[in-house]
Structures are given as structure tokens and as C-alpha cells.
């Protein structure tokens, strides 16, 4: 493994080309800034994706292969960690947005000041955000209009004020959305069409989204779903200022004699090491891998990892948890239609309410059961084999759907991402070790929401319901946040409110890591809006004026 000739220094080097890194790249390059993006995974084109449940859901075609990219998990530091694919996200250009169906709700005003609203919660590090909903609102609008989000402004009565509606009307109604809507109406609950990363009609020169059954956890061979791969990457490339290098795995960010970030040292597809210098570095590897990269970047100046003088890098990690009530109906539901996640939602249980006996709340939505495709569909009491298993497949596969929840798990000081001292990945680097104990508030919230989701299914006419209570946070929905929290105080946060490291002024983190709390909603819209906000800040700092815009022109 040789060290290749050093490439030219660049304005900004972004590590990662997923939801956050590609958003930042679009904004920076469209404002005249040259960007090198180092993405550890491949750059797969739409032609490489297919409607193949076995490959995509079961055989790691898109998920990280646990033999190459393991992680370890333990509940507390006295426990022996075990290898577990905790909270995986596809590692490739486009990241998790390559295989998602993309539920894109906004957070609400109260999400940014839950500590003020709910008070102290024993055993947690619950804090307000250093920014408000108003700070993000313009960027929510920019992302929704550049990305092409289908939804209905005002349909969610708990939604915070918006400056503009959605660019596309809601997606067509699925039977599972319809049933959910009926159940909510019966109980007097508000429901709304889940805002989605899909096009209900042609938009910005892109055709309407194909309604394939192979969508959730599948790449999109038609390129008609909205993703970092189908929107941000082409926008950034169109500027001619985006040097996107796939299969380039950054091992370390080095620092100069002033303690500023100097270069990214990466291993390329040939296995050779390359050093890329830049004025500014942005990390968008996802909250687990960004924390891991900072911890791997040890130097005399930062012996415990870059920007980690506070020992807070990796701490306060939050992951959400997806849990659901499954309902079985007499009539066909076809919950595989559209891939199972062309959904309807409710924020009825979202806002904090003291009378419920727990802090926080959850976005709930109708969806297929798990991945509602033939191999991976199941019911909680379905046997693994035999005549009864076959009967349940035959009778219930086409007659069931779930009302799922996004659990708002509480931040805790000892829930953290560290480097494992035993297990290494296929590139000989220590893997991320997750230490995580589930807080009693999380369990109480899960129990309450699941019980109420069951009532919705019953009101919708389910003949049988299964309540799957979350028993611990397992990382099963791939959401990850809070490992590099932003805040005003360097003693209690890693980044300032512009997501700039308190200790290293040319280093930014733009994924979910900066989120001080998890909230109870799907994070990617906010990740992208925040990345846009941070990129805007970098543009302003550099004093470069706006040049062209591609998909952002309507914002």
C-alpha cells in the first residue's frame, strides 16, 4: 500500500456523500466553492438497483455486510460487548436515502425547547437546542422544494408555521393509509398524508415516482424517488465544482501546528493512502461513523480524538426505536402496495403532555408489517415452520398492516459510541462500540403510544391486534443522533450552533450528530435542512456570492 501523490488542496472537504454531506455539497458548490467529497462506499448508479427482496433486504446488497463492517453493542460498560449490526445505514453515495421510502415530517417548535417545556428528567441530559424552529424554517422550505416532497400543508394540525406549502400534492391513497385515517376519525384524532421523498406528479424535470412494491429497503432503478443520489449529487455535479470520490475510506483527520484540521487521510479503491488538504472539513458520515472518525483522529493536541477535549464526542447517543401494533383485517389491505410506506400519519401523540406520565412523544404512521414483502413479512405469533405458519401467511399476509411509532429516546451521558478495543473492520480499524441502556421514560412512552396505536387499529375494524412494545432501544430504524451535540457552552457540547467544533474552528459536523435531542420524528428532513443552514454559514464566512442554482431555484 503506497502513499499516492498528494492531490491539490481544496476549499472544502466533505467526508460522506449521503443525506447530509450531499446537501452541503450542493449548497457549497452552487455558491462557487470547490468541494472534494470522500465517500467510503461505492457510487452506484440507478441501473444497479432492482426489485429483489432477497438481495436487498436479506443479503446485504445495500445494507453493510456485518463481516466487513461489524459493530459491537453492550448495555453497560461492565458488560462484554457482542458483535451486532447496531443501527446500520447503507454506506455508499446517497447513504440511507438510497434505500428508504423517505418519511419527511418537520420537527415542531417545541422540539427545540423540550427541556424548558418538560423540565429536568432524572438520569437524562435533556437540553434545549441552541437554535429554534424559526432558524430552520427557511431551510425546511428550501429542502422540500429542491428535493420534491409530496405532502399537504396544514393537514397536520400540530404542524408549526410554514412559509410555503409542499411542492407536490400528497401521494395517492393506499388502503392502509385509508384504514388508519378512518380509525383516527373514529377517535377524533387528526391525521395527515405522510410527507414523502417521492413525486406524486412530475416535478423539476423529473417524472412522477413509480409505485413499485420494491421500495422500502430497495434502491430505485427508475430514479424517480427523491434521494441524495437522485437530487443533491446531480445538482452538485452540474456545477463542475464537486469532485466526488467513491470507495475512499477516511482513516483520520490530521491537525496542523495550530490545532486546526489539516487533511483527511484516506485509503482509496486500490488500497493506497492519499492525503487531501482543505480549508474546511465537514463530517457527514452519520452520527455513529462521524463520532468514530473523530475518535480515530488522535494527535498530540487531541489525544482522545479530534475536538474531544470535553470527552463528549460519542456521548448522549440517541437512536429512536421503531415499534408497532399490527392489525389483521377481514378485508384485503394490500399493505405491500407502493412498498408499504406510502403512508398516513398523526402527530396526536407527538407533543409533550405531562398528564401522560412521560416526557416527549412520537410520530405515528400506518405502514406495512416490517418489510411487507413475502420473505420478510411476519406476525408476532407466527411459528417458524409447519402448517400453521403456512396458514398465517396465506390468510394474513394481504390482510394486515401496522401502526408504527418513532420512539423519542432520551439522551443519557453514558449512552455512547466509542472505539472497540477488540473488534476491527475489514480495513483493520477499530469498529464503533455502542454502549446503551434504555431509559425508563423510553419504555413508558413506548407502552403508552403502542396502547393508543392499538385503539386506532381497533377503531378501524381490525379483528385482531398485536401490540409490540419496545423492550430496549435496538437501533432498528437506522436513525442516529446526538453524538456531537451542538450548544452554546463548550463544556456541555461539542459544536456551536453552526455545528462548528468549539475546539477546531474549521471543522463542522452536518449529520444527525449535532442534534441535542432525538425528537419523535424521522430525522432526515431536519438533517438536510440543518446541513443547508450550516453550508450557508460557511458560504457567508467565505464571502462568496451565490452563482447558479439547479433544483433549488424554486426555493
Amino acid at each position, binding site marked *: 500500500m503506497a502513499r499516492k501523490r498528494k492531490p491539490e488542496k481544496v476549499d472544502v472537504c466533505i467526508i460522506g456523500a449521503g443525506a447530509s454531506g450531499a446537501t452541503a455539497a450542493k449548497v457549497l458548490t452552487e455558491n462557487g466553492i470547490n468541494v472534494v467529497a470522500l465517500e467510503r462506499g461505492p457510487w452506484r448508479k440507478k*441501473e444497479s438497483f*432492482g*426489485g*429483489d*427482496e*432477497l*438481495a436487498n*433486504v436479506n*443479503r446485504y*446488497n445495500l445494507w453493510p455486510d*456485518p*463481516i*466487513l463492517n461489524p459493530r459491537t453493542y453492550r448495555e453497560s460498560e461492565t458488560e462484554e460487548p457482542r458483535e451486532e449490526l447496531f443501527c*446500520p445505514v447503507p454506506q455508499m453515495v446517497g447513504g440511507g436515502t438510497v434505500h428508504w421510502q423517505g418519511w419527511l415530517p418537520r420537527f415542531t417548535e417545541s422540539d427545540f425547547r423540550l427541556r424548558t417545556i418538560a423540565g429536568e428528567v432524572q438520569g437524562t441530559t435533556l437540553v434545549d437546542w441552541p437554535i429554534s424552529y424559526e432558524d430552520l424554517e427557511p431551510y425546511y422550505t428550501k429542502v422540500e422544494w429542491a428535493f420534491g416532497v409530496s405532502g*399537504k*400543508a*396544514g393537514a397536520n394540525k400540530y*404542524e*408549526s*408555521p410554514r*412559509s*410555503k*406549502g409542499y411542492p407536490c400534492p*400528497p401521494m*395517492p*391513497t*393506499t*388502503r392502509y393509509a*385509508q384504514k388508519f*385515517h378512518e380509525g383516527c376519525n373514529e377517535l377524533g384524532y387528526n391525521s395527515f*398524508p405522510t410527507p414523502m421523498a417521492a413525486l406524486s406528479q412530475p416535478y423539476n424535470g423529473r417524472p412522477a415516482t*413509480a*409505485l*413499485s*412494491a*420494491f421500495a422500502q429497503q430497495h434502491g430505485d*432503478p427508475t430514479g*424517480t424517488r427523491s434521494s441524495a443520489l437522485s437530487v443533491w449529487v446531480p445538482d452538485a455535479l452540474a456545477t463542475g465544482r464537486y469532485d466526488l470520490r467513491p470507495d475512499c475510506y477516511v482513516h483520520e483527520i490530521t491537525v496542523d501546528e495550530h490545532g486546526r484540521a489539516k487533511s483527511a487521510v484516506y485509503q482509496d479503491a486500490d488500497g493506497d493512502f492519499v492525503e487531501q488538504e482543505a480549508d474546511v472539513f465537514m463530517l457527514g458520515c452519520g452520527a455513529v461513523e462521524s463520532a468514530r472518525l473523530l475518535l480515530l483522529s488522535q494527535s498530540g493536541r487531541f489525544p482522545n480524538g479530534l475536538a474531544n477535549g470535553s470527552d463528549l464526542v460519542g456521548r448522549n447517543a440517541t437512536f429512536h426505536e*421503531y415499534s408497532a401494533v399490527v392489525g389483521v383485517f377481514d378485508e384485503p389491505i*394490500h399493505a*405491500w*402496495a*407502493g412498498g408499504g410506506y406510502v403512508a398516513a400519519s398523526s402527530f396526536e401523540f407527538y407533543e409533550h403532555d405531562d398528564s401522560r406520565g412521560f416526557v416527549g412523544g412520537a410520530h405515528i404512521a400506518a405502514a406495512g408489517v416490517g*418489510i411487507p414483502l*413475502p*420473505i*420478510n413479512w411476519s406476525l408476532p405469533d407466527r411459528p*417458524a*415452520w*409447519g402448517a400453521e*405458519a*403456512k396458514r398465517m*401467511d*396465506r390468510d394474513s*399476509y*394481504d390482510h394486515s398492516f*401496522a401502526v408504527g411509532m418513532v420512539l423519542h429516546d432520551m439522551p443519557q451521558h453514558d449512552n455512547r459510541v466509542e472505539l472497540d478495543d477488540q473488534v476491527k473492520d*475489514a480495513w483493520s480499524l477499530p469498529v464503533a462500540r455502542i454502549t446503551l441502556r434504555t431509559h425508563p421514560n423510553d419504555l413508558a412512552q413506548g407502552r403508552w403510544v403502542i396502547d393508543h396505536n392499538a385503539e386506532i387499529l381497533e377503531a378501524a375494524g381490525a379483528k385482531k391486534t398485536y401490540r409490540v412494545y419496545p423492550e430496549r432501544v435496538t437501533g*432498528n430504524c*437506522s436513525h442516529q443522533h446526538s453524538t456531537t451535540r451542538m450548544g452554546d457552552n463548550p463544556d456541555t457540547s461539542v459544536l456551536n450552533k453552526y455545528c462548528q467544533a468549539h475546539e477546531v474552528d474549521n471543522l463542522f459536523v452536518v449529520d444527525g450528530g449535532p442534534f441535542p435531542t432525538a425528537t419523535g420524528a424521522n430525522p432526515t428532513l431536519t438533517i438536510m435542512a440543518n446541513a443547508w443552514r450550516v453550508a450557508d454559514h460557511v458560504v457567508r464566512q467565505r464571502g462568496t456570492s451565490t452563482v447558479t442554482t439547479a433544483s433549488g431555484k424554486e426555493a
Partner: protein
Amino acid sequence: MNEHEKAAGEHLFFDEHQWVTIEAAMSRIIPTDDQPGAKEAGTIAFLDRYLSGIDFVYAKPDGSDFEQLEGKRAEAWQQRIDILGEKYVEGIEALDRRSRAQFDADFARLTAEQQDQILAKMERPAQQTDLEEAQATMAFAPVEPAMQQTNAEIDLDFFPLLALHTRQGFYADPIYGGNKDQVGWKLIGFDGPASLAETHAGRHTTLSYFAEEQIDWGKEDSRGA
């Protein structure tokens, strides 16, 4: 007949005895009743191909052939397939050992009821008394995938693997050698595409399975600007 169709008719991994043993076990996992089961779907051919090496891991997304794996990905898959193959070879021996101990014949020669008894014990090793066998099978874990994520396949032991692979062979796209004539999909009412090429070309749509009437979500209100 192209290369992978030809391959589907041959024994690529199992010998004849292993083949009939696993085929018999699969027929109890998804039994044939008035509708097709694992046997009619050809799940044994699906598994035999999977275990034969790394030539059948991923179909090309347009269904024209299979992907050739390279580099670290190929190494990881070779490692995985080797581990799985070993589990099957040992698992088949365990099936026969138990069958001979209890019924004095190899597994494939037992009645369906006898086979079910053997499989039920394989599924629940806690009931075992034979220490050696208990050690050989003690890691049998119940298969309860989280609702959004798949298991790490090589962490499973023989019986849960067999159940998983039978299910995969019954319901995966027919290009992998099972789900013959889409019998699995037809059984449960999944109206899947005629081929991978349909989805790849964007011709596959589920719109006819959406609701007949659209929900009226109302007018945009003041929050909608």
C-alpha cells in the same frame, strides 16, 4: 437454456442423500396441502445453488445474469457461504443421528409425523437430554427478526437457518431457483412482477392495489402559506 437455468437442474452442493434429506425437511417447513408447498416451489434447488459458491448471491437487477463479486465483498461472501455449508453438512448428520436414535431410520425415510417430531426437537434444544447433541446445537436461537432489520445470517444455527432458507426459496424472485411459477407469491396474494426486468424498466406498478377513493385531506390552511 442459458447457464443458470442449466445449473438449476444439477446438484451443485448437496450429494444425493443430503439433497433428499433437506428436501424432506423443507417439505415439513412449508408443507403441501391443497396448495403448493416447498417441494413444488423447488426450495431445495434454491438452497443448493446458494451454498454452491458465490456465483448466485445477487441476480443482476435486470435479471439477465448473476453478479460477479470482487474484492472484499467476494471474500466476505466466500467466508459466509463456507460457514453456512458447514452448518448444513453437520445439521444433516444431526437429523439422521436423531432419526436413527428415535426411529431407527434416516430422516428422509421417516413418516411426516416422525419428521415433525425430529424437527420440533431440533427447534427446541432445551428438551434434549443427550449432552453431546445439546452442545452441538445449544446456540439454536429463536428467529425473531426486529421489525425493520434482518438477522446476521451466520449467527443462526441449523434449524433456524433451514426455516429461513426455506422461506426465502419459497418467496424470493424465481430467478434464484425457487418460487417456481411464483407459487409462493400466488399463495399469499402478492401480485409480483413477471420478472426482475419489469421492475428494473419501471413497468411494475402496484397502483391497482391502492384505495379506490382518494382521501380528501382538506384545503391548505394558514400554516400552508
